[in-house]
């Protein structure tokens, strides 16, 4: 497969580009505290400003998108669809598997993270895959797929522009939708110039072009494409993928093998449910009318089709999901990973995604991380919120994040993790107080936040999205130690 590799168009990236000096092999969850991680981001003035700006922008676009429509009815419909799908998860998965297999998809079953890594590594070994293009997948972050594949001799190219930067920097994504929210153009410029071996123009356009050329070469020579999946459609066996750059579809179209790693909770009953979920995923994610590329595929290339992979594998990932079914945290499985709750969270807006120590940041990260990684490792995250409820108001599928966070706190208190929590809350609070600017920002959030934000043209205090938040809920940043 690699004979004609070097002469196909695009510009090969220099060897070793994906092996930066610093590799994020282990998540920091176990080795550092929330406050320590938060302090790292807060020490970088750019990151703090950029995160706040970008999240303001996203929140404002979301609000604007649904003006003049019955947004609430749409969210309620979406909530019901997700609740129904999750309440009947085994049946819909069964149906999805039947349909997918009928269309030639090879389905694999990963009960936990290590099994997911083993399965994908095995496919790579069996099929002699040595070069992989990858489209952004949070599930693959969850299972640390890249390092497992590198261990069996696979070169991986993250093809989402932001993820490509993250990979080359040895960083971790800072936001579920915008992975390099916390990075400057100068940092990207420095990185790409070093990779290119000469100084590139310090402009987003030129930097993007550099990445495109390198990744184009990778697309044209990869043995396999690995993606996640935004939804699985039970009635048709479809895997749905949305991207704005087009890298998702190229990943699943050009290489001879497509492997998708998808969490089991992504199932929707019918294609028509997309008419409800897609506008919400996009509108709450980026504020667009629709994501530029929405690709829905079932099985490999069929007879008579001009292009497409010869094999399609889907790895269904449980890894802690089924344990939430039927319990008080089941609603966390309704999440469609739009990132909106991060954008409005006063804590996330200060500390960024890395502080949460694992894959997901913001309110949904504070809920999912303790549930997936355990109270012992991550219980403190439930304290990393102000309980202001802004996340409830913005969530497109109406997950009661506020209640889930309270329940988590209660549970971890019952399990006797109190002292560490208090330490964390205090440390967070102290971080904020020790920095005058930050303090002012946090009190703006805590007291007049909506008015302050609205004055900057950010959100309207009358926004239906934030109605409940504006109803006078008490806002507190951190907790004073008792």
């Amino acid at each position, binding site marked *: 497969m690699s004979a004609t590799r070097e002469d196909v168009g695009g510009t090969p990236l220099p060897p070793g580009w994906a092996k930066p000096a610093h590799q994020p092999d282990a998540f920091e969850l176990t080795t550092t505290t929330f406050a320590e991680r938060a302090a790292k981001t807060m020490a970088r003035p750019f990151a703090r400003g950029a995160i706040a700006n970008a999240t303001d922008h996203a929140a404002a676009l979301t609000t604007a998108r649904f003006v003049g429509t019955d947004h609430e009815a749409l969210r309620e419909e979406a909530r019901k669809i997700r609740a129904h799908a999750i309440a009947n998860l085994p049946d819909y998965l069964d149906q999805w598997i039947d349909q997918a297999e009928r269309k030639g998809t090879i389905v694999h079953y990963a009960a936990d993270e290590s099994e997911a890594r083993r399965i994908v590594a095995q496919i790579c070994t069996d099929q002699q895959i040595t070069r992989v293009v990858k489209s952004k997948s949070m599930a693959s972050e969850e299972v640390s797929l890249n390092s497992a594949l590198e261990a069996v001799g696979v070169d991986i190219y993250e093809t989402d522009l932001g993820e490509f930067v993250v990979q080359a920097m040895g960083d971790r994504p800072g936001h579920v939708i915008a992975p390099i929210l916390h990075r400057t153009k100068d940092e990207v410029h420095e990185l790409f110039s070093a990779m290119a071996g000469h100084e590139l123009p310090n402009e987003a356009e030129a930097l993007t072009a550099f990445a495109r050329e390198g990744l184009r070469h990778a697309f044209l020579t990869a043995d396999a494409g690995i993606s996640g999946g935004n939804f699985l459609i039970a009635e048709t066996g479809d895997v749905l993928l949305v991207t704005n750059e087009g890298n998702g579809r190229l990943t699943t179209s050009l290489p001879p093998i497509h492997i998708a790693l998808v969490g089991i909770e992504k199932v929707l009953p019918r294609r028509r449910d997309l008419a409800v979920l*897609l506008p919400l995923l996009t509108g709450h994610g980026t504020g667009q009318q629709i994501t*530029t590329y929405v690709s829905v595929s079932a099985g490999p290339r069929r007879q008579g089709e001009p292009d497409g992979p010869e094999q399609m594998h889907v790895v269904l990932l*449980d890894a802690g999901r089924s344990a939430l079914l039927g319990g008080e945290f089941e609603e966390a499985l309704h999440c469609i990973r739009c990132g909106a709750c991060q954008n409005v969270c006063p804590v996330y807006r200060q500390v960024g995604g890395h502080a949460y120590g694992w894959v997901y940041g913001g309110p949904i990260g504070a809920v999912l991380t303790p549930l997936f990684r355990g109270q012992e490792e991550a219980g403190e995250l439930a304290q990393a919120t102000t309980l202001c409820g802004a996340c409830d108001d913005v969530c497109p599928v109406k997950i009661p994040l506020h209640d889930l966070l309270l329940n988590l706190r209660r549970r971890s208190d019952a399990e006797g993790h109190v002292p560490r929590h208090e330490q964390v809350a205090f440390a967070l609070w102290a971080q904020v107080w020790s920095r005058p600017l930050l303090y002012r920002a946090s009190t703006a959030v805590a007291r007049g936040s909506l008015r302050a934000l609205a004055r900057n043209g950010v959100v309207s205090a009358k926004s239906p999205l934030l109605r409940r938040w504006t109803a006078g809920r008490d806002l507190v940043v951190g907790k004073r130690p008792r």
Partner: protein
Amino acid sequence: MTDRASFLAAIRSTPRGLDPGLPDRREAPDAPTQLRAGEERPDRLQAEAEAASTIVHRVTAVDVGATVASVLVQADAQRIALTTDLAPFADDVQAALVAAGLTVTEYVEVAPDRARAGALDATVTGCIAAVAATGSVVTSAAGAGRAGALIAPTHICVVRDEQIVGGLHELFDGDALAEAGSLFALQSGPSRSADIEKVLILGVHGPGNVHLIIVAPD
């Protein structure tokens, strides 16, 4: 190795959560991705497509070939491929391109060689539908192929008036997707990224130059 039976059994063994029932109302709730009362489909399609940075041309059937040719001349495209879903207009387009001094290939011939497909300057495709309220064209693996509509820096898509549906509900409830093959895709404007300091860049991995030709009934 976990197999299907044990994987599903583990999930089935959990208690069952609250089921509000699958909503199945005939009237879908209001969404920005639906046609509004009084709107004409081609007009909304044009407005939404333009909002997503697509360049829209509204023509009658006789002008399709000339429109395609002028876009490709302007884009200075040399390596051009047509996909099979262009069928009703393929001959006209082919003739107009030849008249303009351009050479054309069939995407089905180019596609098996990734390197050749990756070196195309432009593709011209049809579609299986267009969605007015989202400004999207819907392409299929069976027609434009999986990558036919986004492999080259310039993409021209031709849609006939009667192929336009109002919104997403109409698309998924209708039968436009029935013969799509192994993939269908909604594509709405140029490839884009705002990853670097929120600066919007068009044409990242897919085309930056995207044209939609809406063909009015004669």
